[in-house]
């Protein structure tokens, strides 16, 4: 992308114009759209996805509104401007011929990390995008899962499929939590999203298994503009896992995903993320910019719980939030964000209390190493109707070394006198005494640091599904290698 960004504008215009002269039909048939964004591009995306007219209209409305918006600049991150006209907004999955033929052609450093994380060989191939035509074990696993889910009446498919197969649900809920014009990146996503998941859990159903994007393998290539919509109908329960611990490389630098959760009365949604996008080299070069909008609405007696472990990306801009609309609804946010080298993270949450007796908990653990910058930004708002609303926030930062930074930006607004808001914040360093105690017991310093950091994160890890928690611990260990010095 950077090389494309270097093309001067006239050159770009020429390329775009010449391509478009070929006409709309040709564009639909081609695998990759030329860089740039306009209404035609959106029409092509919609046509490629065989979308109904209402979906196209929705995208176009989003696009028109987005054009009036400005990229936000309030976050505690710094990066050169992203040239949105240098991005191609539709690209078919790479054909087998373009991919590495075997793991021998993949970056050895990446393979080394896979090995340390204990990832099986066939999964390594999948993650590294190797062209494999053999059937993975996981394919059959996925098929078994699908039939089990269907039995329970759970819908779990790609968002594109949902637009075609379940239009009544998508139309009702898409954009109901994150409106088209919510923010610059969400607006862009609304106009051009091409990928993502859709989940619907029927009334009173407890989803029989943890849903993971991992098993939606027919869409192995994660999109640049992912859109996820999860609807838990009354009294239902679902646990959803996103991402994986293996470092994911992607040629697209900008990622702007939107995730919407709808927890209808009495429903519970648990959403866990492990994000490990390529953070770039020591200077952050080549790393992913991750600008994500994640939000859920909890109706009466519903509960939404976000748990995230963020270790990747050059830039993370992410605030998974809960709108506690219904009375007695519950919102939770558990987060571990680790930054090292030149990584910058500005992450946190928003808890918007609207209903009575609503309750929210925020536990955020930031770990900074190298020359990275790690900011927690959180908003707790108690609305005028939020009688007896309660929030507890705990925000801890751990510094490794003396070149990194940790920042906390809490915003608290209360419009109801009965609201209770507690905020605790600590900043600590891994002390020499702790390290010496471990070393005196024979434990090498790297293992000691990772043990101390894992201990620091325990409150968050225990919220993750078991297997994920073990992987997350291992991921921190690998990520911290070389952080001691």
């Amino acid at each position, binding site marked *: 992308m950077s090389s494309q960004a270097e093309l001067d504008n006239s050159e770009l215009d020429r390329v775009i114009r010449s391509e478009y002269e070929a006409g709309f039909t040709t564009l639909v048939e081609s695998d990759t759209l030329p860089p740039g964004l306009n209404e035609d591009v959106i029409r092509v995306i919609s046509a490629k996805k065989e979308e109904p007219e209402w979906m196209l209209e929705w995208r176009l409305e989003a696009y028109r509104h987005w054009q009036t918006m400005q990229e936000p600049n309030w976050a505690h991150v710094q990066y050169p401007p992203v040239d949105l006209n240098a991005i191609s907004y539709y690209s078919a999955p790479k054909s087998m011929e373009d991919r590495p033929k075997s793991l021998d052609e993949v970056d050895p450093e990446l393979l080394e990390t896979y090995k340390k994380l204990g990832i099986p060989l066939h999964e390594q191939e999948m993650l590294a995008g190797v062209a494999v035509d053999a059937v993975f074990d996981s394919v059959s696993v996925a098929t078994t899962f699908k039939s089990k889910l269907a039995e329970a009446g759970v819908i779990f498919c790609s968002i594109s499929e949902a637009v075609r197969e379940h239009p009544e649900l998508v139309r009702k809920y898409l954009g109901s939590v994150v409106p088209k014009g919510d923010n610059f990146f969400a607006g862009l996503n609304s106009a051009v999203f091409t990928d993502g998941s859709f989940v619907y859990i029927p009334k009173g159903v407890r989803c029989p298994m943890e849903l993971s994007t991992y098993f939606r393998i027919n869409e192995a290539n994660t999109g640049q503009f992912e859109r996820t919509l999860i609807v838990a109908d009354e009294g239902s329960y679902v646990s959803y896992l996103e991402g994986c611990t293996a470092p994911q490389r992607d040629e697209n630098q900008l990622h702007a995903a939107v995730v919407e959760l709808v927890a209808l009365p009495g429903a519970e949604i648990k959403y866990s993320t492990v994000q490990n996008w390529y953070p770039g080299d020591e200077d952050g070069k080549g790393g992913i910019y991750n600008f994500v909008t994640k939000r859920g609405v909890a109706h009466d007696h519903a509960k939404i719980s976000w748990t995230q472990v963020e270790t990747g990306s050059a830039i993370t801009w992410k605030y998974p939030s809960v709108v506690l609309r219904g009375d007695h609804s519950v919102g939770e946010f558990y987060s571990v964000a680790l930054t090292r080298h030149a990584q910058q993270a500005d992450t946190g949450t928003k808890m918007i209390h609207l209903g009575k007796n609503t309750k929210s908990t925020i536990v955020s653990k930031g770990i900074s190493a190298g020359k990275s910058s790690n900011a927690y930004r959180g908003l707790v708002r108690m609305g005028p109707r939020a009688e007896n609303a309660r929030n507890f926030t705990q925000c801890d930062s751990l510094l490794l070394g003396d070149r990194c930074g940790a920042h906390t930006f809490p915003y608290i607004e209360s419009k109801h006198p009965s609201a209770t808001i507690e905020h605790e914040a600590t900043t600590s360093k891994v*002390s*020499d*005494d*702790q390290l*010496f*105690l*471990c*070393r*005196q*017991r*024979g*434990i*090498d*310093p790297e*293992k000691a640091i990772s*043990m*101390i950091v*894992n*201990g*620091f*994160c*325990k*409150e968050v890890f225990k919220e993750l599904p078991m297997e994920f928690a073990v992987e997350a611990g291992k991921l921190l260990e690998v990520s911290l290698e070389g952080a001691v010095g």
Partner: protein
Amino acid sequence: MLEIRDLHASVAGQPILKGLNLTVKPGEVHAIMGPNGSGKSTLANVLAGRDNYEITGGEALFDGKSLADLEPEERAQLGLFLAFQYPVEIPGVSNMEFLKAALEATRAAQGKEEWDSVTLLRKAREACKQVDLDPQFLKRGVNEGFSGGEKKRNEIMQMLLMEPKLALLDETDSGLDIDALQTVAKGVNSLRGPERGIVLVTHYQRLLDYIVPDFVHVLSGGKIIKSGGKELALELEQHGYGWLTGGQNGDNGKEDQTA
């Protein structure tokens, strides 16, 4: 097993040990006594390899290897154990997890068989019982919210499990009531054996009522000024340190520089 010759050491650039000699053979228990500020804790920390505790002259050999050449974890892996004067808390890391990491690292290095989780848990529970510590403490964070006495007993519990060749106890008796002192002493005594050396660093004689040393050394001004048998401790008890340091007990109001 421990051979210290003309050892000079400084803490953060300040000379503390000034020509110390000490030999500990397997099976022996040595007590290092002395007034505050005489360098007792410095000696323990220098031997264990704490940052900023630097050997500036002479040598300290452990099983023939120069300690100065070894990282703290390497010394531990060779079987050198320090029971800390002020054990630090590691929140969120359970005692059990910590012990597992420590035992994996040291037992492998010493060519001892690895303990599986069941064995480890059983041994750890036994060790807890020996020092009168509720096995529930194994699940808690290392020293997290422990009382002073519990921290000290936790140190001895670790020592019992790790079965070191050489155990250094840095003022383990400080802050213990008489019952806890007896419990701790019982634990230490159970480790006494022909293969093991024990060095007790203490200010008071009372620990030595329960752990009877083979040798007592008096440290003052960074040197050992007198050595003797267990009766030396009793004499000290009667006459005070001033008896040996010529009225000057070396106590300048500063604690040993340990923390």
